[in-house]
């Protein structure tokens, strides 16, 4: 169907987007790579000098670096497990007949609209604060010692907050996918005596596979660069307990103003993100082509 004419036209139509994104990627990237080989601290102007790989050396050998990698993986993994698992359960539940389904859906989707900064602040102060937060009040009124969420379980608390924001997203996609499932197929299986678990495992789950992949892809893109929630709650601490890669780069380039080291971190993060992207592409490509 594609003629030579339409091919040329297509190229013309696609090029603004490609050129813009290329510029958006390449200009900052080129500057970042350039800075990453400089000794460049914003607070010490005039001392810029070529340093070769020094910034990379310091960034990678920084004891926080390994922690940051593991924290990033824990954060992304934890949130994915909770949102995909919880989202599937929510979707199965919401797919069943009930009264007021529309309102329940409105209630469930609401956290998705909340700014990350706001949700971090609200959970930190109004809920998880051990003295004035609602959990603290409840614990105290039952005679328990209030739990210090950000001191004792900092990463779990962040995962919790982020999951709260992303659970609606997963639920809605999975619910839509579930609703598109041919109900006759399920009924036939039920009449053949397949248990609910079997129906779920052999009919629903394969049907959801594609939707789950999309949830994982989109969420990973956003979760790799989680920042605001950490900034307003734990500032990456205590210690490095909640410092992910994005936050570590923030510390280097915007708290220590070491643009050189921050840029080196940025380059490393881009490389790691692309490894993840290639991995995801393989996975998605298989599922989306179908």
């Amino acid at each position: 169907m594609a003629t030579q004419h339409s091919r040329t036209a297509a190229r013309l139509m696609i090029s603004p987007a490609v050129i813009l994104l290329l510029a958006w990627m390449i200009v900052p990237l080129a500057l970042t790579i350039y800075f990453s080989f400089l000794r460049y601290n914003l607070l010490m102007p005039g001392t810029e000098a070529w340093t070769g790989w020094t910034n990379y050396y310091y960034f990678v050998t920084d004891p926080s670096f390994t922690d940051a990698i593991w924290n990033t993986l824990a954060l992304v993994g934890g949130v994915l497990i909770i949102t995909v698992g919880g989202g599937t359960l929510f979707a199965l539940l919401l797919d069943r007949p009930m009264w007021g389904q529309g309102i329940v859906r409105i209630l469930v989707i609401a956290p998705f609209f909340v700014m990350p900064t706001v949700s971090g602040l609200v959970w930190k102060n109004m809920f998880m604060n051990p003295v004035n937060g609602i959990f603290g009040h409840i614990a105290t009124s039952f005679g328990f010692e209030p739990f210090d969420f950000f001191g004792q379980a900092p990463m779990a608390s962040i995962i919790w907050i982020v999951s709260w924001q992303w659970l609606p997203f997963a639920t809605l996609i999975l619910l839509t996918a579930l609703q598109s499932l041919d109900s006759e197929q399920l009924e036939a299986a039920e009449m053949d005596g397949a248990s609910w678990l079997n129906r779920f495992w052999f009919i629903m789950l394969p049907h959801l596979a594609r939707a789950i992949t999309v949830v994982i892809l989109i969420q990973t893109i956003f979760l790799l660069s989680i920042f605001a929630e950490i900034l307003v709650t734990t500032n990456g601490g205590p210690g490095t307990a909640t410092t992910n890669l994005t936050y570590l780069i923030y510390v280097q380039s915007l708290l220590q103003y070491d643009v050189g080291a921050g840029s080196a971190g940025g380059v490393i993060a881009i490389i790691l993100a692309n490894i993840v992207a290639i991995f995801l592409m393989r996975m998605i490509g298989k599922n989306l082509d179908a």
Partner: protein
Amino acid sequence: MARAVSNREKTVTTIVAWTLGILMFFPILWIAILSLKTEVDAIRGPIEVLTSGWTTESYGAVQARSDYFKHFTNSVVIALGSTLLGLLIAVPAAWAMAFVPAKRTKNVLMWMLSTKMLPPVGVLIPIYLIFRDTGLLDTRTGLVIVLMLINLPIIIWMLYTYFREIPGEILEAARMDGASLRKEVLYVLTPMAVPGIASTVLLNVILAWNEAFWTLNLTASKAAPLTAFIASYSSPEGLFYAKLSAASVMAIAPILIIGWFSQKQLVRGLTFGAVK
């Protein structure tokens, strides 16, 4: 489902679903309640909070400190502006990818998505320097451009999945009738894609509204949107729960209401081609 369901089963489902729904929504409900309390009442236990008196003084205090409507206007302009500008660039690109697929289309698409993984904190200084030299610091134009670029990959991908569902035969027919490419896009394709475009717009308005890194770091006062408005309440002196709640409600309410009213379109958009 066609299957008959007993009323008992339906009741149980309803109770469980409503409980979970209310739990999910509870944090938002709770700040709405706290925002209508005095600062002293707002830090009390839940029962004392519910039984104490109501007041709107926190909203007044927040408004007195920072002009809500200025920030609100900036948020609206930035969110809508970046989405519409993005649409302008994305529609042709997505069209081309969907109807004239080349060998590398999929790779280009994935590459576009991967630009979203660029950690913003790592490139703030370069962008800041560029903005300084082009006079874009603290301007809405600057933010419209940056947010457009950040969300462009998502816009393209969403549109691409919609366009792919439009049967190619219709386009062929239009082409047979001698429609030019421009007419084809304008009169045949776009109307069919309106629902898809609508949901794309919605999702991107939400993403742009909630973006908190660039909007805070590239603005000072003139172009500062609601994310900057919230930043002054993160850890102030004295008691601040009621004021923080009021500011939070003011910041999230507009997008929450829009989201609720348009959730059907949004849900359809969110599937990213996952559901056929």
